[in-house]
């Protein structure tokens, strides 16, 4: 009697997919280069838009919104690319043919996208601060901004990876990410902008407002990730 082969651990498969994605991105730099350039161009547009606002305008009032706007549009560009790699030469099929649980593929791709997104964010925030926030210090500590960015980015990477997978599998799929991403991300983005804004602006009780927003953002992330986790099999499968 032939014995079924021992199942390879999901952790081993997760590490293999993540490592493969990182190696390929470091080799091609397609996502990182396009995302960084797009962010810089967005900042240039901001510069043009704000150039007529006058010296009395306090940029801190809209800084959080501007930064998250840049993150959202940049992430849409990168997320679209992240699954295109898998479509080349039928690689996604090869991945799906291997004995891997579909959620393992989702988490590996989402973590990879989160890493690339955060690299771009780390580059963007200092440039934004130098270009627009000179002489206007933020009220709270920087780690609060970072925490807000991490919570918001987890949602972006999770939902974005899910939609990008739908996009590569569907005819005319490039519209899916652009049309569905912002409506689905709206509550999480609202929480992220509110949390970041509280730290930038300060004022009475800003810490309570920050934690409330971060908590709300984390809760929304958890709900969306669970939903995506449950639906991913249907999206990549038959």
């Amino acid at each position, binding site marked *: 009697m032939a014995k079924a082969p021992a*199942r*390879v651990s999901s952790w081993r498969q997760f590490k293999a997919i993540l490592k*493969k994605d990182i190696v390929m991105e470091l080799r091609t730099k397609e996502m990182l280069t396009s995302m960084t350039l797009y962010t810089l161009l967005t900042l240039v547009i901001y510069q043009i838009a704000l150039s007529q606002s006058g010296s009395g305008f306090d940029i801190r009032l809209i800084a959080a919104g501007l930064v998250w706007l840049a993150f959202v549009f940049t992430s849409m560009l990168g997320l679209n690319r992240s699954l295109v790699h898998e479509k080349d*030469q039928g*690689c996604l099929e090869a991945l799906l*043919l291997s004995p891997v649980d579909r959620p393992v593929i989702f988490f590996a791709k989402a973590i990879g996208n989160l890493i690339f997104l955060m690299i771009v964010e780390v580059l963007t925030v200092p440039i934004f601060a130098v270009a627009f926030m000179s002489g206007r210090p933020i009220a709270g500590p920087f780690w609060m901004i970072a925490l807000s960015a991490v919570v918001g980015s987890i949602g972006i990477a999770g939902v974005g990876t899910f939609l990008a997978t739908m996009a590569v599998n569907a005819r005319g799929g490039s519209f899916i990410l652009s049309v569905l991403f912002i409506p689905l991300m709206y509550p999480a983005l609202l929480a992220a902008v509110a949390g970041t804004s509280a730290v930038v602006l300060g004022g009475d009780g800003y810490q309570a407002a920050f934690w409330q927003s971060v908590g709300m953002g984390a809760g929304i992330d958890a709900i969306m990730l669970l939903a995506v986790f449950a639906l991913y099999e249907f999206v990549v499968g*038959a």
Partner: protein
Amino acid sequence: MPEARADTLAVEVTDLVRAFGARKALDGVSLELPQGAFLSIFGPNGAGKTTLLRVLTTLANPSKGTAKVAGFDVVADAVELRDRIGLISHNPLLYPDLSAEENLLFFSEMYGVDDPAARVHELLTAVELDHRRLDLVRTFSRGMLQRLSIARALLHRPEVLFLDEPYSGLDPHAADILDQLIASVRAQHTFVMVSHDLTKGLELCSHALILAKGKVVLFDSRDNIDADEFARTYRSTVGMGVA
């Protein structure tokens, strides 16, 4: 987890239907294939050949009916089944921005292959690509891609190998190499091949199947098939169009 029995049929399909909306790409397909057999599947474009292959390789779910490969149900035991099948397609299913060795090592990890470095070296040598193991796959010719694709499909020593028009786009020399590679592993696997090449398909097979409009037109052992009669039957299906 179910265990495959030594006397299990390699492929067992019963009343299989795969529908895309109102259109049935597979319409009541049934067949049984013994272990060690070589099945060639013929049919006109849109007959349902690739859809049948996608269902048998767990890439698509049946709408109705059942299908088992190596004793494992393609839906209920899909993850266990994937350990036991390999697919060689006209698409190489390889990452162009990884080297030949990196591709095979990646898939070794996905399948949990023991001693992956040794297995990868063994297969790269077998497909005569060991000297190019560090080169990016995007630099490979079509023939080299197909040889590497065979190595990828054999990595985990699958019981059943599926071939989806594997000769498509190959020059005669590359086709000869593919013939040799198939011959060298013929005894160790059951093969299911989709082909438009009647001569090649009949030359290789132990069983032949003609599909048209998603239905089985003919399924029989090669020993019971007269090549001329088979060719006439096949040609009569070519005008039947899409399922």
